[in-house]
């Protein structure tokens, strides 16, 4: 690989930095779109451009090779990367749990008629997650553990979130670990929430973060600082203006109007809750997701 192909993104012209951010087009990244439209980045001389990727597979290499200057990813993925010595560093908080049982933006749900009543009943069942060996199975196991069940017997299967409603409906899976908007979809179709997994893990759990490459951090510390500031302002603004968040969703997602009004929005604190990340790290290590314990000092700002 080389850095030749980086083109003009990442370059600066007339004091303005052109910055490309790799994001997943879901509700979680609403603040950055909102911040862009509010001009929080422009005032800091950052010309922002969002590129949508389907997940870490595309975003992390993009950031490492400086095709993207920043990226959005969940913390488990970032910690996995850290244990493999991928040269990246988190620079701003991404998204956090609401911390409210039964009113979070991600949960384990079952069919209305399912015999599964509580998280404890999930032991030994077939549960879908969007990515195996990632944050989904970690937090689901923790929910079961907290409820007094045996998490080691859960059978996880992998499928994209959008497919979960149908799979649950058909009985291919016993339960699904989903996030919005599918969470609302399933609930509207009579599904029942049995565990607010993020809350069970830590009521202040930071789930995802924005990150950059070590190289950019070393070469352009000023740009990174400005990005973090703008990001934080965006997060704060988004947290305070849920209606505007619901509005901005229509620009980069295709969630229909009704669902947009109903979905549970996450929290967007500006601080990465280190303790919660530490817990995620320990749980992951126990479950064997990480080869070695992640070094959070190296990863987190």
């Amino acid at each position, binding site marked *: 690989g080389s850095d030749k192909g980086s083109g003009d993104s990442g370059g600066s012209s007339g004091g303005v930095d052109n910055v490309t951010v790799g994001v997943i087009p879901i509700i979680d990244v609403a603040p950055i779109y909102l911040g862009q439209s509010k001009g929080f980045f422009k005032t800091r001389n950052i010309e922002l451009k969002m590129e949508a990727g389907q997940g870490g597979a595309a975003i992390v290499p993009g950031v490492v090779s400086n095709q993207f200057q920043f990226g959005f990813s969940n913390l488990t993925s970032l910690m996995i990367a850290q244990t*493999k010595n991928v040269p990246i560093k988190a620079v701003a908080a991404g998204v956090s749990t609401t911390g409210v049982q039964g009113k979070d933006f991600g949960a384990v749900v079952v069919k209305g008629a399912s015999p599964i009543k509580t998280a404890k009943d999930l032991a030994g069942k077939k549960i879908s997650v969007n990515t195996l060996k990632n944050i989904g199975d970690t937090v689901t196991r923790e929910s079961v553990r907290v409820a007094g069940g045996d998490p080691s017997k859960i059978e996880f299967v992998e499928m994209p979130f959008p497919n979960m409603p149908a799979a649950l409906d058909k009985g291919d899976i016993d339960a699904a670990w989903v996030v919005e908007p599918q969470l609302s979809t399933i609930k509207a179709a009579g599904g029942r929430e049995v565990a607010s997994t993020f809350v069970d893990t830590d009521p202040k759990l930071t789930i995802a973060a924005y990150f950059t490459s070590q190289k950019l951090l070393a070469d352009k510390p000023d740009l990174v600082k400005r990005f973090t500031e703008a990001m934080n302002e965006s997060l704060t603004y988004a947290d305070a203006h849920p209606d505007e968040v619901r509005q901005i969703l229509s620009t980069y997602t295709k969630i229909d109007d009704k669902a947009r009004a109903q979905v549970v929005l996450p929290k967007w604190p500006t601080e990465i809750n280190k303790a919660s990340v530490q817990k995620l790290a320990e749980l992951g290590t126990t479950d064997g997701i990480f080869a070695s314990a992640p070094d959070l000092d190296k990863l987190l700002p």
Partner: protein
Amino acid sequence: MVVLKRILFVVGLPAVLFAGWFFLSEGSESFYSPPLRTILTAFGDTWKPDRLLADVVPSLLRLFAGFLLASLIGIALGVAIGLNRNLRAVMEPVLEFFRAIPPPVLVPVIMLFAGIGDGMKVIVIVFGCVWPVLLNTVEGVRAVDSVVLDTARAYGLTGPARLTRVILPSASPRIAAGLRQALSIAIILMVISEMFASSNGLGFTIVQFQRSFAIPEMWSGIILLGLLGFALSLLFRLAERRALRWYEGLRAAQRRAG
């Protein structure tokens, strides 16, 4: 001597390419393209017998099931469509429609009908690799020599005999071309199908490596995939040689000049 030469032909270019890769990548610092040395070490460490059994065997089973089904469907449908002009007119747009839909976006629909088990994966494989077989069969059937067809008709070679003794043999070189292409597409789709709702398989493992940033292991998986494809195509070539001996002879007899 001849055998030696043949072996040299087979391994020559790959050896050169691998050597080139080895030396060029030797000092590589890039995280995503590690030195080949590292990849090869990872290859040895990763693909132990139990791993092969757990991941490669299920993949292969799905692959064979999918490929076999696709071949049967492709040839059967291809012959029908190739022989009947009206059927061809009716079916062609519909088939083209489905052919243009990327398997990954069709997965939800297929899951709807086939669940998330091996059935779904086999269907995805079939869905993707039936096309080269189908198209080639149609073309092969349409291109059967008119004198051959007349001869068959004149001698009362009709019905099944016409199909098995005339149409299929005559179209077989093209069908073989289609099957061969289908085989490598089947491998590709095996990987794609295992990216969804899977918990084992070669594709799943490669994607898993990629996601967990085990990059040398990921590359070793890609190499394994290549080797697998190569081995399968070798097998296919053997079968093709046997089945199409007449055709190779026909062409080679006069070409090779004795």
